[in-house]
């Protein structure tokens, strides 16, 4: 519902402060980044305009491709596991009535916890010699010590596990909201018709949950592509470049090696990739929702 506009400039005056901040710190940097990606500028050098050189350099850079591959693997792994665990957890949580508030509170804690602390905490727990995972869980079972953060593939999986610990509740709580929104008459009707638990899930919960699922996956993807803090704390990108997610690559290129325009070019490529994925996804979302 809208009020009638009395003095025309008011709505614009009201959005002005927000626009000023967004333009100065979001739009201007984006344009500036695009501009500088065509120049060869770094912390200690300035060779002026260079056309597409930065982009060509990136496309030929093995580290860049490695970081894209690492990011993709990490996102796919975390996204799938978090979705499956989150869905199971949501279905189970739906059955709980007594103490649901306590469980919800517990679930919220990981995702509010400072990511830097999460990283440090798990670096301590996954430590090969003193970590609790090796000493408390694997040793009693007679399993050998595992070098969680030292092996290239395992290190990436470990980062994934930490992300799963931190963000499965996020997916679970979104899906729980969706399940709670499904009218209970549908389940009652299905029970009367003698539908089994699985077919109730397959033919009622799943289709009606689709919008929530799409929201959960969308926001989880947007969050995963930003991953940086836990990588820094857990592995610092190592071993080698095994956990160089894209944010870490750009950070290293820019802040560590001072190749500012190269980092800017990598940013543009990242933005294009994110935009393509999000657009495809939103198209899918629209087609599912308004079918």
């Amino acid at each position, binding site marked *: 519902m*809208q*009020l009638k506009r*009395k003095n025309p400039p008011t*709505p614009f005056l*009201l*959005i002005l*402060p*927000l626009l000023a*901040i967004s333009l*100065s*710190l979001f739009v*201007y*940097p*984006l344009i*500036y980044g695009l501009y*500088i990606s065509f120049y060869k500028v770094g912390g200690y050098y300035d060779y002026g305009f260079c056309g597409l050189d930065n982009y060509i350099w990136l496309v030929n850079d093995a580290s860049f491709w490695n970081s894209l591959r690492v990011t993709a693997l990490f996102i796919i792994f975390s996204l799938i596991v978090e979705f499956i665990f989150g869905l199971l*957890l949501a279905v189970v949580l739906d*059955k*709980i009535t007594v103490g649901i508030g306590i469980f*919800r*509170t517990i*679930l*919220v*804690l*990981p*995702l*509010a*916890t*400072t*990511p*830097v*602390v999460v990283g*440090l*905490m798990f*670096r301590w*727990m996954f430590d090969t010699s003193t970590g*609790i995972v090796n000493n*408390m869980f694997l040793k009693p079972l007679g399993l050998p010590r595992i070098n969680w953060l030292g092996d290239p593939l395992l290190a990436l999986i470990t980062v994934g596990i930490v992300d799963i*610990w931190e963000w499965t509740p*996020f997916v679970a*709580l*979104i899906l729980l*909201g969706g399940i709670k929104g499904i009218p209970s008459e549908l389940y009652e009707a299905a029970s009367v018709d003698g539908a089994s638990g699985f077919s109730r899930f397959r033919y009622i919960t799943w289709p009606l949950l689709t919008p*929530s699922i799409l*929201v959960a996956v969308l926001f989880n993807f*947007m969050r995963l592509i*930003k991953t*940086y803090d836990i990588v*820094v704390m857990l592995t*610092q990108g190592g071993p080698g470049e095994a956990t160089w997610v*894209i*944010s870490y690559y750009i*950070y290293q290129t*820019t*802040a560590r090696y001072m190749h*500012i325009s190269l*980092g800017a070019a990598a940013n543009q490529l*990242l*933005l294009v990739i*994110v935009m393509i994925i999000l657009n495809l996804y939103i198209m899918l979302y629209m087609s599912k929702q308004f079918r």
Partner: protein
Amino acid sequence: MMVIIMRKRRIKVSDVAAYVVVILTSIFFLFPLIYFLLIAFKHEEDILNIFATRYTIENFVKLLTEGALGEPPEAIIIRPLLNTVIISSTATVITLVVSLLAAYSVARFNFKGKEALSYFVLGQYMAPPIVALVPLWHITTTLGLLDTHIILIWCYTMFGIPLAFWMLRSFIMTSTPVELEEAALIDGCSRIGALIHVVLPLLRPGMAVTFILTFLFNWNEFLFASTLTATKAYTITVSIAKFGAWLYITWTEMAALCFITLLPVIILAILIQRYIVSGLTLGAVRA
């Protein structure tokens, strides 16, 4: 009769199973936090055991009087904590004021481009922050703002806007009836007067939730804090990262530092537990 009994029993069994699963998952999510934070209260020799026989607050006393890792307490905890409080709260207040004005404008007026504005703000949320970092870093050095409170406050305000704007927008649309404002306007109240005297009191719970959420994410921020600060304006997350990266850490003191950092976060998270997921999805999920 048999059928009824059978059904009753089946429901009970599945309920019990549900509780068992939920309790086990709760332990999975709680255990690392409790285990790690308990280290803060342990003696050095007990840190490898889950439970110690005796607990102590010595680590906190040491951290606050002698510091840790050869650093004085001023550098490792007091200054970064102070910086974090100043930066997070100032940025949160500015974010809230700016977002409230814009959200009110979008919720109450019809003007060209208001949908575009909402989606522009959404885009700001979608773009990975690292994308803004490179140019920002350059701009910051040019303006001479590196390692100051101002630049971080400015950045956090920008990052807080999407969440605050979308949350407040939906709070205004759901919890403040437009009729009350119309009445106030007819009684000769100005637009801003109506916002302050009619909308704000009704919006108090929504403002509180948005404030806490924004503050929480500002408190936890690391990427920008670590890049745009050096020795003066660094925040608590930077301090943890810096000293946590050392090869030989006194874990007891590190855990104490983390405990102090996490305490406000956990209290605030418990307070607004219902709204965290809603906030993170910009209101796409109802609280």
